[in-house]
């Protein structure tokens, strides 16, 4: 088990870290660590997939060689920066003086983080969807060395492979309990959120709102199991927040990180169209700022990963699954929106299974939105709200579209609940920005 954990950490440090330092050298170290894991494990599993398609089996030797082949040049290029990063991180920890409030927040974060890890390192994969699909594919990949044997029918090709291939690494390394990867996703969500928020608010505020984020019931619960929803939430929400950082910090590196994170969200779950929401925001912002090249940059980093799975899935199922087809499909549905009865059903469904579980955080988000619109000083946060509302729009339209395409959609509430998890980081990010500014107004 210990070898699999070490290998995962090596992927983060060997692939993710130099890549993140290459893209955003001056990012907050905590956010850099989070992005390193997310981008490292995401891109490494994608590389595993491509190399396997080229005929190389999944094995200890092959994955080790692959890791060396990717990380050696990256570390060689960013050797100095990697070293400086660790010195800087060490210095930060050594010199840190925390107030009582910060110590309480940190203490609680450590408690829930460690609890999540203890549980995932103890329990084997046992919940239905994971046991039967995501993790089962990993077992076959590790046992047979190839993907073909797993895909005996369409049931096994419905979801992309990020989590399955991450589990494969654990099994290849002799591990039995791969769920710790999901605790790492959870910790990365907390660390990434903290680091991104820290760019705009005080350490105290950032820590406090990170606590609020990590105690969210479904997020904590999903850190204990191995469904794809948490990983999807982490990739998509942090990818969306990176768009905000790209605009505010004027650094293209954040845009590339955003493109990679959103692309990797589609490498985790491909059915949901939220990537389109982020793409629309990037398109609008880039056009508004007259930075047309940035649209191309996002496209270049997003589409290869997104398309690869679509093409592969098409080759297995022979069902039309191109991105153009996907967008045309959505457009067709938008044309058939003049059905008030269906809208009522969709509204009721979203209220019951999405808005109600969100609870009062959604009410605070709505109040924050109103304040942002009324108070001039808060309008600088408009983009973060715009991103969130665009994704909410995708949620509403997506539910509407699915209710037309799949008759049973409105009968399944649990899937919507799991899907709507991705809004918690966005709501809390917007609320934190507003609250901090309100306190400043007071001062």
């Amino acid at each position: 088990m210990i070898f699999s954990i070490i290998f995962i950490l090596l992927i983060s440090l060997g692939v993710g870290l130099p890549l993140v330092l290459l893209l955003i050298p001056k990012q907050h170290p905590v956010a850099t660590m989070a992005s390193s894991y997310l981008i490292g494990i995401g891109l490494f599993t994608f590389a595993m997939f491509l190399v396997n398609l080229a005929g190389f089996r999944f094995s200890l030797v092959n994955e080790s060689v692959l890791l060396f082949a990717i990380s050696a040049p990256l570390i060689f290029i960013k050797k100095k920066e990697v070293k400086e990063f660790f010195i800087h991180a060490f210095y930060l920890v050594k010199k840190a003086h925390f107030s009582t409030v910060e110590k309480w927040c940190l203490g609680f974060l450590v408690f829930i983080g460690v609890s999540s890890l203890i549980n995932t390192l103890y329990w084997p994969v046992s919940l239905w969807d994971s046991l039967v699909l995501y993790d089962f594919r990993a077992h076959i990949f590790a046992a047979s060395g190839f993907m073909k044997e797993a895909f005996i029918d369409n049931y096994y090709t419905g979801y992309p492979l990020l989590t399955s291939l991450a589990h494969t690494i654990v099994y290849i390394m002799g591990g039995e309990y791969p769920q710790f990867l999901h605790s790492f996703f959870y910790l990365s969500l907390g660390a990434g959120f903290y680091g991104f928020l820290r760019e705009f608010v005080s350490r105290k505020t950032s820590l406090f709102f990170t606590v609020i984020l990590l105690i969210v019931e479904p997020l904590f619960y999903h850190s204990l199991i191995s469904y794809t929803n948490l990983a999807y939430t982490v990739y998509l929400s942090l990818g969306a927040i990176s768009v905000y950082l790209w605009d505010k910090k004027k650094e293209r590196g954040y845009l590339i990180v955003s493109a990679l994170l959103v692309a990797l969200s589609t490498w985790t779950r491909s059915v949901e169209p939220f990537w389109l929401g982020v793409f629309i925001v990037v398109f609008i912002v880039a056009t508004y700022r007259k930075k047309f090249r940035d649209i191309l940059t996002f496209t270049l980093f997003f589409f290869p990963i997104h398309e690869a799975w679509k093409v592969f899935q098409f080759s297995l199922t022979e069902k039309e699954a191109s991105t153009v087809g996907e967008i045309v499909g959505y457009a067709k549905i938008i044309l058939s929106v003049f059905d008030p009865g269906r809208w009522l059903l969709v509204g009721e469904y979203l209220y019951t299974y999405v808005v109600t579980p969100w609870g009062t955080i959604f009410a605070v988000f709505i109040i924050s939105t109103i304040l942002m619109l009324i108070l001039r000083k808060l309008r600088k946060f408009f983009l973060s709200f715009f991103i969130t509302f665009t994704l909410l729009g995708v949620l509403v339209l997506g539910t509407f579209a699915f209710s037309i395409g799949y008759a049973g959609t409105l009968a399944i509430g649990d899937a919507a609940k799991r899907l709507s998890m991705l809004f918690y980081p966005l709501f809390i990010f917007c609320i934190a920005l507003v609250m901090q500014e309100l306190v400043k107004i007071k001062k």
Partner: protein
Amino acid sequence: MNLIKKYQKTLLLPFAIGFTFFCLLLETLKYPGFIGNHFYIDAKVYFAVAITLLLFLDTKQKSANFVLRVNRILLVPIFLVYFGFALAEGAHFTNYVLATYHFHLDGLVFVPLFSLSIFVTEKFKDIVPKTIGKIGLVYPLMVFLLVFFMVKNITYVSDTAFNRNSYILFHLRDNYDDKMFYQWQDFYRFMVFVRNNTPTYANIVVSPMQDPWLIGTGNPHFVRAFLYPRKIIQEEKIIPDLSVFGPNTFILISWGKEECKPEGCHGWPRQNIQAKKITYKDPDSEKVIETKENAVYRLEDDQYVYGIIEL
């Protein structure tokens, strides 16, 4: 905030804290949600109201100060009591505390958390502004909603973490099979039994995807997850032609877990089958309890829940 000033000198804060403790203790004895079900407002709302009041009201007055001091004294003992019961639950079985002491552990967690929240809020108090001129009452409303959101979630997270951790603490020596048995009970043992009694190249014939076998042998993907690399073949309620199966084919005998209609619908296969060997699983383990060679399988003779028929 004239309203706050007006109530500053009343017993509002001590009353709110005392009343919330009372509600939480009552829910521990009855069940979580009892207050909400009978008095319309959930105890978590009182919890959040008390914490919000503590954030906004002055605590230097005598009565409030007294309540906070009592809370500080009781905080550690309350936590120790909760830990004690959480460990007892982990050491025995789920709902052990309810069955033995007749109160709800998932309700009890609110009491130490409320006590801790009061203690921590005292420390947070000074950094939270009391008023924000331009937005009036909207600000305390936002704070209250945030506190309520935290109360709702933190109780779940703490309860889950404490209970799961204490279970793990008392089951450190459990192996993979023990843990899977904990999750899937006897069905997991049946899968181990099949694995132990069939070759890896076997064809495994399973029951149809309908009640009472849906969460079990009726789902070929589910069975495949346990029995890979064996080939899984799903059949109908009455297998139309048994002669199509070659050697190394095994039919899974399964009583079925869910309810079904009409009466007598449990048990599969539902036809007589000439078997090379019938092997039945011991109800209390994954071991073999009985075997019959060159026998005819008949549903009406079936005495066990699980078994395999070798054709």
